[in-house]
């Protein structure tokens, strides 16, 4: 039986808000989103001087009558976008039990996003990674694509450690059309390199949204007593009394979060800290609402 990656409450709330591309995306089909391509649509944008090769159907003859110069009317073209979901499936994402498990949380988030995008007639691709690409589904706006994505998500099993930056560069170089990039990860990698990767994506014109998935334990470090921490991505064990190092830990985490957040802001990426202790619907709808509001 397939896991339920599309919780009705989340989907319902997210569906209301929808997901609008904040920046201009290059779509293949006419959709809800602004396109950088000036075409021949409804909303006039500007005139341009005719150059040979232009379709003479677009010549503005009224203008020619007034100025005896061939000009072409340009209209703003509304198009659909391609959303690229990057899902971190490294071993570090395994942390947490039940609903707070980071990977499960991330999977649900990815599924909801995919569903949302497809539902608003945009296309979405799924890219599962750890140290490299694990599963990749090309962008598609078919309703059945969601089902494919869900199957893919179900089959995801973490195996290796995270290495985000090279993959971001890889994605930036592969995807020419500007679109939306959703990075869903705990980002337990070198912050600088991640930010460089994000910068690369932004440079390619993508709108990047970083869903930083963290477990409450990783944020609050609520351990007491003698604890041996067994590293999930490497062979390392640390025996310590966490209550004694909590402040130092929290400082380190806070610094790390600040670095990521500020780096995202610097690169004009949306940054959303997804605490798995907090219901996804709440976190996601808050973000979508904010995003809608900003856009409006």
């Amino acid at each position, binding site marked *: 039986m397939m896991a339920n990656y599309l919780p009705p409450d989340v989907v319902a709330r997210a569906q209301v808000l929808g997901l609008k591309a904040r920046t201009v995306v290059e779509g293949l089909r006419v959709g809800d989103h602004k396109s950088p391509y000036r075409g021949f649509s409804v909303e006039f944008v500007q005139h341009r001087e005719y150059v040979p090769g232009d379709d003479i159907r677009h010549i503005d003859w009224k203008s020619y009558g007034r100025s005896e110069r061939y000009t072409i009317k340009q209209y703003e073209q509304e198009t659909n976008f391609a959303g690229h979901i990057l899902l971190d499936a490294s*071993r*570090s*994402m*395994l*942390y947490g039990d039940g609903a707070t498990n*980071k990977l499960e949380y991330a999977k649900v988030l990815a599924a909801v996003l995919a569903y949302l995008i497809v539902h608003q007639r945009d296309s979405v691709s799924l890219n599962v990674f750890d140290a490299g690409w694990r599963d990749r589904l090309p962008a598609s706006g078919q309703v059945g694509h969601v089902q494919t994505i869900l199957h893919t998500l179900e089959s995801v099993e973490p195996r290796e450690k995270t290495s985000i930056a090279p993959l971001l560069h890889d994605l930036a170089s592969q995807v020419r059309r500007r679109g939306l990039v959703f990075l869903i990860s*705990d980002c*337990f990698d070198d912050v600088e390199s991640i930010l460089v990767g994000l910068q690369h994506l932004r440079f390619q014109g993508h709108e990047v949204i970083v869903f930083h998935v963290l*477990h409450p334990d*990783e944020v609050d470090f609520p*351990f007491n*007593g*003698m*604890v*041996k*921490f*067994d*590293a*999930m*991505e*490497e062979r*390392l*064990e*640390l*025996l*310590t*009394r966490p*209550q*004694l*190092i*909590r*402040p*130092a*830990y929290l*400082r*380190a*985490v806070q610094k*790390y979060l600040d670095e990521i957040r500020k780096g995202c802001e610097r690169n004009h990426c949306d940054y959303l800290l997804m605490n798995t202790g907090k219901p996804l619907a709440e976190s996601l709808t808050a973000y979508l609402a904010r995003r809608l509001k900003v856009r409006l």
Partner: protein
Amino acid sequence: MSFLTPFMLWGTLAAGIPIALHFFFRSRYRTVPWAAMKFLLTSIEQTSRRLRFQELLLLIVRCLVLALLALAFARPLTTLARGSGRGDAVDAVFLMDVSYSMGGRDGAKTRLERAQQAALKILEELPPHSTVQVVHCADRAELLGPQSPGNLDQAAQIINNVKLTSLATDLAPGAVEAASILERGQAANKELYVFSDMQKSGWERQAGPLKRTLESIKDKAAITLVRCGTRPVKNVAVVGIAPQSGVPRPGERVGFAVLLRNTGTEAVERLNISLTVNLDDKSTEVQAAPLIAPGETRAIPLTAKLEKPGLHVLTAKLQTDDLDGDNRFDQILLVREQVNVLVVDGGLSERDPKKSSSYYLMNALVPVKDSDKAKYYLQPRVVPPRLASPALLARQDLCILVNAAAQPDLKHRDALARDFLDELGRFVREGHGLIIFAGDQVQADAYNRLLGQKLGLLPLKIKGVVERAIKEPLLVNRDSFDLPAFLKFKTDEFYKEFNRVEAYQALELDESQAAAASRAGPSDPVQRAGPDGNQEASAAPARVVLRFQNGLPALAAKQVDAGEVLLVTTAADPGWKEDSPNPTWTDWPLRFVYVPFIDVAVAHLLHGQTQNHNLTAGETLRWYPSEKMTRSFTLVSPGGVRQRLGLPEKVGNRLVVTASDLPAAGVYRLVESLPADTTPAPIPVDDKTSGIPLAVTPDLRESDSLETFSDEQLDQRLGFSPAHVTAGAEAGALTLSDRLNREWTTWLLMAVFGLVVAEALLAWWCGRAW
């Protein structure tokens, strides 16, 4: 360091508990798979050094808390000795030195008074339910009580009543007694207080046993040495009364030399010395003593008139120095109407008395005209050896053997009879004197065997005869005179003729025996006697009292029980030979110093016959009653205290009355009375006049050296450091504070409390998130 409850020291093992817990809890952890290792590593890197330090600090503090707690429960003491802590009942033993040096003045009080004051203060400060036993000690120790050790009021009374003795200090018996009492004590906490002036002699007399005893005590009890008196004592002791004019006779004023010795460290002057006869102040003659330097002995001439024949008590008193105990010297003197002397002459020539060996001696004994000889007090009788019988000795006061053979042989047909020799042994032991002169008839082997080994009369073994040529004689060294009686020959220039006395033959004596005996130390003369009283060779040390200038003995002396023997190694006569005009033995009889020598020697031996009457404090009195009728004896002390001695006991073939309790100097009286069962009414006893007088002098060893040991010297001698307190106003407080400070429990518990607080703060501080 010692502990009152040492088994609690096992508790220090609890110090390992925090360590064990540390490892235990380190082994009890839960494993958490963790993703954000990067931050964990960062935080651990930042905090690990501090955490490790904090953990170590906490661990040390916790271990320390437990260790100190166990240490506190073990109740450690600051001193090396065990002892009590605050508030615990104590079994205390007060060992009080009552030798007469404790009578030395130390400021306004005597040392004993300071000791009593300090003891009372310490007594007051003893914790509730403590017990006390008071032991006084000089050269012997006696437990004074209280009968109920917990009765501290009685103990205080006993301390107040402690009296000085005339004995010398020897702390060893006291320490043994104290050890025995402490052994019997029930309380866990024991304390020994030694109240003494810390006189060297008291610690040196039996240094080894004393050290061993105190070492054994220190394992069970806290030892506190309470120094009583810190100031040096100016002291001149009266060390003797020596008659200066032969044998005293009734009605004569007799010259005496009262011998004074400065035993202190400072010169003493302006002293008055008095001589009293029979404790009658009217007879007292007083003389001012000149300045006496430290260590100097001076003879102060004094006279006394002895009215009647019989025993007289001479008392020399000194007024006054810092130490009263040796300022009085009593001596019993026998004044005789007539002195009978038996001269046994082995070279007696009835045809020509001048050729007799005793010719010069007889003239020296009776240096008066022939017409006066019958009236002369000294009546010698000369007999050849063969006629010397035990009966002849019966009424003699003195016996002189002159050139007498001890055993008949081919060369010496006229020899002393065995029964006479046996009687002679008894005669001497009873207190009479014997002078032996050498001569041709003296056989070394027979003398050594009979008079030496058998009877113990010979001072030194005779090795042989030393012969010198006329031109190389043995010369007498008058500086070697070593008896108080002969002191004037040594100091008076009038007698320098002694240095010209020549001897051509002299007995060679074996001094090795005397040297060995003197190394072994003096022993009780009473104990030296055999069980039968007279048949065993005596082990008494002999002394050489005059030597020739080459060191050979000229005169040797030996105490034999109550009597004394003088052995003159040369002859009593020059030893004329028909074929030679020169003397063959000595020219001594030809010189004028011969007569005074004989006079003093005879006086000395006669004077020694009162030896039974003259004792030193601490000696055992052994009185041999001469009466055939059995009488009961009572000893009356100088203070008038009577001690019933009861009927004489038979020891060997003699009756003897024994009294061992003569601790105080002064004149005792031995009063005879018919036993109650033989007479309906006992003879009334008049203590002051009746009875046999006995003069007991202080044990002058005590004031020979008044040097004291410092605290450091005592520690060095003992090999450990007992507590030292100086008696005074602070003595009680000092011992109390010593007791308080001695136990560390309170301080340790306070330290534990402090550490616990520190641990709590530290744990809070370390547990804080940084």
